[in-house]
């Protein structure tokens, strides 16, 4: 890692960066000097702590969010890596979808690990059958797709639920947004594959005032609780003007994805840990 270049890059994105850290210019000088002596692995940590100072967040807050994200990415990466290793699980025609998704999940793991440096948590051991609920997840393609569907939608919700905690930190918040939209692309692609196999599903999460889990699989109820929210910023979306009358409740559900709090996501994750 070239620290001087990294700081120059940040100044490109945020010209006020130097102003933000100016009372601590000596910090940079010290870091640049120690760069020659300190092991490369320690730099991300030191640099992360400088960023946290510059943007006013405690290191613990940001690391907590990043480790939470990393744990979810470990599960997704393991899920797709294992899927691709099975000889007769993914049809050849669909393989390209999964190699692309797996590559992203592995990249997310590497990216988050490098941002966290030595603060990164290790990967848990996973049980992809969710303790026997999805016994044939690695042998039945439709089960595999259904679990992928729920995991991707939950990943989108998990990132969305952490965005506000990253406010004030331009670099990390933007990176979280950028991973978040990739997870949503995955969710759309997996749902599209299911659609093409005749499953009654759309690329977007649909529902109604009473239906919150559009996968129709009760085992995923916890993944979708609250997705059928019809009110945004105090406005009932179904009262807004649509092209024919008012916006339908299914459109109101589809047009806005909902966040999920950390504890609920961890509950879902715990089903998949060995």
């Amino acid at each position, binding site marked *: 890692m070239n620290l001087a270049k990294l700081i120059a890059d940040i100044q490109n*994105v*945020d*010209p*006020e960066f130097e102003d933000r850290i100016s009372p601590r210019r000596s910090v940079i000088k010290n870091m640049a000097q120690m760069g020659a002596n300190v092991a490369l692995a320690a730099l991300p940590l030191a640099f992360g702590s400088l960023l946290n100072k510059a943007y006013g967040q405690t290191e613990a807050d940001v690391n907590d969010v990043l480790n939470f994200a990393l744990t979810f990415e470990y599960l997704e990466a393991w899920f797709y890596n294992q899927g691709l290793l099975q000889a007769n699980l993914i049809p050849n025609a*669909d393989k*390209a*979808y999964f190699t*692309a998704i797996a590559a*992203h*999940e*592995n*990249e*997310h793991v*590497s*990216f988050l690990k490098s941002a966290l440096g030595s603060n990164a948590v290790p990967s848990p051991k996973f049980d992809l059958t969710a303790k026997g609920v999805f016994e044939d997840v690695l042998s039945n393609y439709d089960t595999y797709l259904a679990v992928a569907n729920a995991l991707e939608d939950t990943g*989108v919700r998990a*990132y*969305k639920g952490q*965005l506000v905690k990253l*406010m004030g*930190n*331009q670099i990390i*918040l*933007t*990176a979280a*947004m*950028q*991973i*978040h*939209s*990739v*997870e*949503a*692309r*995955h*969710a*759309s*692609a997996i749902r*599209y594959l299911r*659609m093409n196999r005749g499953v009654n599903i*759309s*690329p*977007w999460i649909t529902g109604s005032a009473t239906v919150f889990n559009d996968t129709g699989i009760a085992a995923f109820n916890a993944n979708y609780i609250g997705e059928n929210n019809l009110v*945004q*910023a105090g406005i009932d*979306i179904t009262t*807004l*003007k*649509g*092209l024919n009358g008012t*916006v*339908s409740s299914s*459109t*109101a559900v*589809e*047009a*806005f*994805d*909902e*966040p999920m709090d950390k504890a609920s996501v961890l509950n879902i994750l715990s089903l998949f840990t060995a």
Partner: protein
Amino acid sequence: MYKQKPETPPGGIARRKFLGFIAAGAAISAVGFNSCTKDPTRIVYNDHVDLGVGDIAILNLAYVIEQLEAAFYTRVVASPYANMSNTERVLLTDIRDHEVAHREFFKSALNGNAVGALTPNFGTINFADRGSVLAAAKSFEDLGLTAYNGSAYLFKKSDYLLLAGKIVSVEARHAALIDNLISPASFADSLMINNNGLDAAKSPQEVVPLINSMLKDTKVIAPDLGIY
């Protein structure tokens, strides 16, 4: 009069553009006043509309993008391209309805601060041709997604950041679907997603000129964001 404010984004651009603006001899005092005040009243020029100040500017930016997307898909569904399959018609109609809901939501949420209805310029799109329509759909979805990703950090109010998050993932679902309709498994376009697995993000400074290229007559400016 000009003062670097905390919410002014990547400031070099703002400063340079501002100097250029002064050199052009335009209404300095009017814009200077606007960029320094909390008064939400916008200055409307003959051929430009001001997006406003602070969070309002970002929300109006989103509102204009949703206006463009809603108008585009409304036309796509009203005059389908040759051989549009039933599945495609259903999906494109869903997307149309989402964009209309987004548009009406922003209009309602922005209330008196919303910019007016702007007129899109769909000049080069051939609505009779599937390839042309899907390519345009991809550019609209990618524009929306990158704009939300790149401006999220500017929000001062957490409710607005969360709302942007709720909408951008739906835009990402659209973007991936459109990609897959164009070419199977192309939802992870390497022009959009880098080798850290991060999707693209564009600053308002990059987004506004793209939006303006798709607007007829009245264009948008955002002096508060350093965009003139």
